[in-house]
């Protein structure tokens, strides 16, 4: 089941009655006897039952409006949510799942079409929106991400109808800031439909090819790796077993670089032949998985997140467990000269002596499926720069870096938003990380900046500007912990603040690294603002 992320309200009886009435004239035709997948024919029948009352079936399996639009699974969930809550459709949970699956499979997006907007499906926090010229960011991107737009395909006439929905449903739209300074409606109904229809048309070769093809299955054994910002890298294994058409169970076993291990089993549905949507429970947190299976079925990648607080989560990459020997990742990749540290090498078929090159000495401490735990000592005088890593006959270039000092710190995200929390709405936290870099030095092999990975730093908040000083934003807006996670203050008016204003703030998030008495700093800009009242699956 995919997550709708929207709190469901009981719908009014009058509205339900209206829908029931509409269904009276919805023809519940017998299914045409064609050799379709069992799943697809059930999907069609359910769509006919619940949608055809308003979306007339003008020819077999062709429903007005709904058959001329393609969307991501989340896009279908959002639309159907509107059908329920605005248009009064009464839809049992199971029927909703069937319809979403059917529509995402038959009117979905090809992998190349969803690629640009994946960050939105993955609910990645603080990612800059898609760049789409000058007009769309203001015309559309001021209310929701442009990814929401780019994750749909329809022709100009349907984009036009969608503009009518926007203003018909939200009559204040034209009056809001960034609408009232321009002829919003005029532009949205004359220039934009054609433009959007050109950018995101209904019929594309990509989709035709994808729909016609057969798709890889995710079943089998996988090696997984990833990073949870604020916590670190993890490695492990995954076993996927089939549980019926496009349904799977996935057994995870992962170990964090800090040594902590955890396991979980997720329930997975595969939409559109590649959209992996899973739910699982990790250390008693309910987790959602939004991954994409590569067309060749060899790679799974994406993000998982806390079901209640989507900004909290981590990246994931999985590769098939069987295959030629390979080193896939080394963690941490930065090795400080003159120290000894523990390092995890992840990969397939890792057997034999481990080497990090001249001036280093590595010994294997432990082996586990898909990974080695090694201890690496680096001479104080070892040459700085990137290193190849080898295990027996298997080697990989640029997998590790030897450094003597960090030359630069970059705090990411560079611009972040956190939201105060309270009542039924959880705060939106912000997770910061400080990435180290080696800068080019004439006396070394370092020619371009080399990334060292996340550094262990001290975190501090500071007022961003004069106004933030005056309003004492540092005191009221929230706090940051040792892992770089910012926790905003409580929502609502704060009587301790001037004008009893809320706990908003404009802050600098400063990372500092002490290197033998010398302090290296990096900073980011954090805006703490008000709550969002709804959490749609695509912002």
């Amino acid at each position: 089941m995919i997550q709708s992320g929207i709190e469901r309200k009981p719908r009014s009886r009058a509205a339900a009655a209206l829908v029931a009435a509409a269904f009276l004239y919805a023809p519940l035709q017998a299914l045409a006897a064609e050799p379709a997948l069992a799943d697809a024919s059930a999907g069609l029948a359910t769509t006919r039952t619940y949608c055809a009352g308003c979306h007339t079936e003008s020819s077999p399996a062709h429903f007005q409006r709904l058959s001329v639009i393609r969307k991501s699974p989340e896009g279908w969930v959002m639309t159907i949510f509107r059908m329920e809550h605005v248009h009064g459709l009464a839809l049992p949970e199971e029927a909703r799942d069937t319809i979403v699956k059917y529509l995402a499979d038959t009117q979905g997006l090809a992998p190349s079409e969803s690629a640009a907007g994946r960050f939105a499906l993955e609910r990645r926090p603080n990612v800059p929106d898609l760049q789409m010229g000058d007009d769309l960011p203001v015309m559309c991107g001021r209310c929701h991400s442009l990814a929401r737009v780019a994750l749909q395909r329809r022709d100009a006439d349907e984009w036009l109808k969608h503009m009518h929905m926007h203003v018909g449903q939200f009559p204040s739209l034209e009056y809001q800031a960034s609408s009232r300074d321009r002829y919003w409606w005029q532009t949205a109904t004359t220039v934009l439909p054609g433009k959007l229809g050109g950018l995101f048309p209904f019929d594309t070769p990509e989709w035709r090819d994808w729909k016609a093809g057969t798709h890889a299955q995710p079943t089998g054994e996988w090696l997984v790796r990833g990073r949870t910002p604020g916590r670190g890298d993890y490695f492990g294994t995954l076993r996927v077993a089939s549980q019926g058409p496009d349904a799977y169970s996935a057994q995870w076993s992962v170990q964090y670089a800090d040594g902590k291990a955890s396991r979980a089993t997720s329930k997975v549905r595969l939409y559109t032949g590649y959209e992996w949507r899973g739910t699982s429970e990790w250390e008693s947190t309910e987790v959602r998985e939004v991954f994409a299976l590569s067309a060749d079925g060899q790679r799974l990648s994406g993000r998982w997140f806390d079901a209640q607080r989507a900004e909290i989560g981590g990246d994931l990459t999985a590769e098939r467990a069987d295959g030629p020997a390979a080193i896939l990742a080394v963690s941490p990749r930065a090795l400080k000269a003159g120290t000894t540290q523990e390092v995890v090498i992840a990969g397939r078929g890792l057997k034999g002596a481990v080497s990090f090159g001249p001036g280093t000495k590595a010994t294997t401490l432990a082996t586990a499926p898909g990974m080695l735990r090694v201890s690496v000592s680096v001479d104080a005088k070892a040459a700085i720069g990137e290193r190849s890593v080898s295990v027996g006959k298997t080697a990989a270039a640029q997998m590790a870096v030897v450094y003597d000092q960090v030359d630069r710190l970059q705090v990411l995200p560079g611009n972040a938003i956190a939201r105060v929390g309270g009542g039924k709405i959880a705060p939106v936290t912000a997770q910061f990380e400080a990435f180290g870099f080696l800068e080019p030095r004439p006396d070394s092999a370092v020619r371009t900046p080399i990334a060292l990975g996340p550094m262990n730093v001290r975190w501090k908040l500071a007022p961003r500007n004069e106004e933030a000083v005056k309003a004492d934003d540092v005191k009221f807006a929230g706090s940051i912990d040792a892992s770089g996670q910012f926790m905003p203050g409580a929502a609502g008016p704060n009587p301790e603040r001037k004008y009893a204003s809320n706990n908003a703030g404009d802050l600098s998030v400063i990372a500092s690294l002490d290197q033998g008495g010398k302090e290296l700093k990096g900073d980011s800009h954090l805006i703490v603002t008000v709550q969002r009242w709804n959490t749609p699956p695509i912002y």
Partner: protein
Amino acid sequence: MNRPLILCGLALALLGCGSAPTRAPLRDYILTGAKPDHLFVIDAASRSVASDFRIPEANGWVGSIATTADGKVAYVLVNRMESIAGIDLTTGKQVFRADLSQGNERVKSFFGINVTPDGKQLIVYELPTLLELNEYKVQEPRFAIFDTSAGLAAKPVRQFPAPRRVHMILPKKDGLSFFALGFQLYEFDLASGKLLQERGVRDWNRPDYSLPDVLAFWPVSEPTGVFSTPTYSMHGAGEGKPGVQRTSLMTLDLGSGALSYQDFEDTVALIFSTAISPVKGQAFGVYTQLTKIDTVKGVLADRVDLAHTFYTVNLSSDGKEVFLGGTTCDIAFYDPDTLKQRANMKLPGCPDQSISTMRVIRR
């Protein structure tokens, strides 16, 4: 439905109270709406609620209030902008009702309602949308004119095309035409619907200024008959210079039609709405602060912080007191000279006034 909390003062003033030997001197009453269906009449001098009328079928939403100077009836935009309820301010009875939506045509009025000075015609800016089986069709906006004596199922006596994005209707004092404020300041003939003139908002013809941003949707023109609204624009931008944002006061004399803009400061404070005082040279604006503007010199005269935000400001008819309302459940009374608060009264039950208009009538 109506539970008037008649106090003697109002009863006297509004009903004459039969035996009163001489007419009581006119008093100022503040009208304000509050969620979910309140229309309050407040005796300004005694800072007390004279009436708490309940508007039938307000559907939890109370917006703009239009009324005439004599304060006989208040026309209130309710039901999520889809209905106008005319409430008799003496009895609290609904004497007029226009439900704008009909059949599958849903009609909302974005704060665009007002009544002619003679109280006879109601002008409504309508935003219609056809709700079809599987499609919404946004229709062109229009003005609808209602006869205020049409009763509880009022239908427009005439309708004519309107520009998009109008947020305010202001009838001219002579009752022959009305202004509509939106992209431009338009003036329409009330009888024929003919566009008489379009005056600068979008083409305000002030070289060296960017387009002004104008939105305040509180149709307040008492006690002077001059409507005012804050506007924001960038001054001196271009050729690599960012320019500075300036706040000006736009004023429109509903008698003469005179329109003016007066810059009074670089934008340091947000002002939601303004009102012109009968005391020459004074205007007031509110949001998180109370702002006093010297309209003779065109400068900021004074500014004080408020306990919380107020959306709307109005004045006693002698200009000797400033009233702040809207937003939450209190009305604040300020001294126009010192900008000190004289009193603050909470509406009973503390209902949110939200975006409702605060009007002042004299009875």
